[in-house]
């Protein structure tokens, strides 16, 4: 096994770990983009140019954008919930929402 493949494999293991450990979803998006790039390069080193092309396009561009758009929609909904109060039965307690935001940072 060449050193390049071994190094990229280790890098893929490390970046996968970082994706999991980035508890804030907004930070996780960037970890995911990095993971996609590392995986794309790994597939290139494993002589799979077809797979690398689609992994780089999907993993570094399309999926992170979908995550960012979903997070933006969720943040907008939370902001709306805070201003609208308890209408429609949502949990509109700003302290709770912020605590939830913080919980993702602190949860192990």
């Amino acid at each position: 096994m060449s050193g390049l493949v071994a190094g990229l494999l280790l890098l893929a293991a490390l970046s996968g770990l970082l994706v999991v450990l980035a508890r804030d979803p907004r930070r996780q998006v960037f970890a995911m983009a990095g993971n996609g790039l590392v995986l794309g390069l790994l597939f290139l080193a494993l002589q799979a140019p077809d797979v690398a092309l689609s992994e780089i396009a999907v993993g570094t561009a399309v999926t992170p954008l979908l995550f960012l758009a979903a997070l933006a929609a969720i943040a907008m909904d939370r902001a709306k919930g805070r201003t609208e109060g308890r209408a429609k039965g949502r949990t509109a307690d700003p302290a709770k929402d912020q605590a939830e935001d913080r919980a993702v940072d602190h949860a192990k």
Partner: protein
Amino acid sequence: MTLLPWLVAAWLFAVGLYGLVTSRHYVHLVGCLTVCQSATYVLLLGIGYVHEAGPPVFYDHPPGTPAVDPVVQALVLTDIVVGAAVTALLLAIAIQVQRRRGTLDPQALRPLRPPPSAAE
């Protein structure tokens, strides 16, 4: 040393599972699921790899030169694209969960508990 690809695949899957179990945010959970998925890509492409062989595209080098396994590459290729679409479906569900329940913590989302508005 030759075990490294298989161990990396197992590691990615285990790490993804750990993330799934401890996740406190649905979107983060979907991200961990993609890590689990990438374990299968590493495993499949590792199985198909051949030493000193080129890609299975016979444009520059004639057919007959050693090349890596194209079948696993085809499997991974379709799965990456379809997996991204499935991830998008999960994210759409996450947005709807936030709209209806006002939270994305899997711990607070008990499936059989009616939303607070229905209880009133």
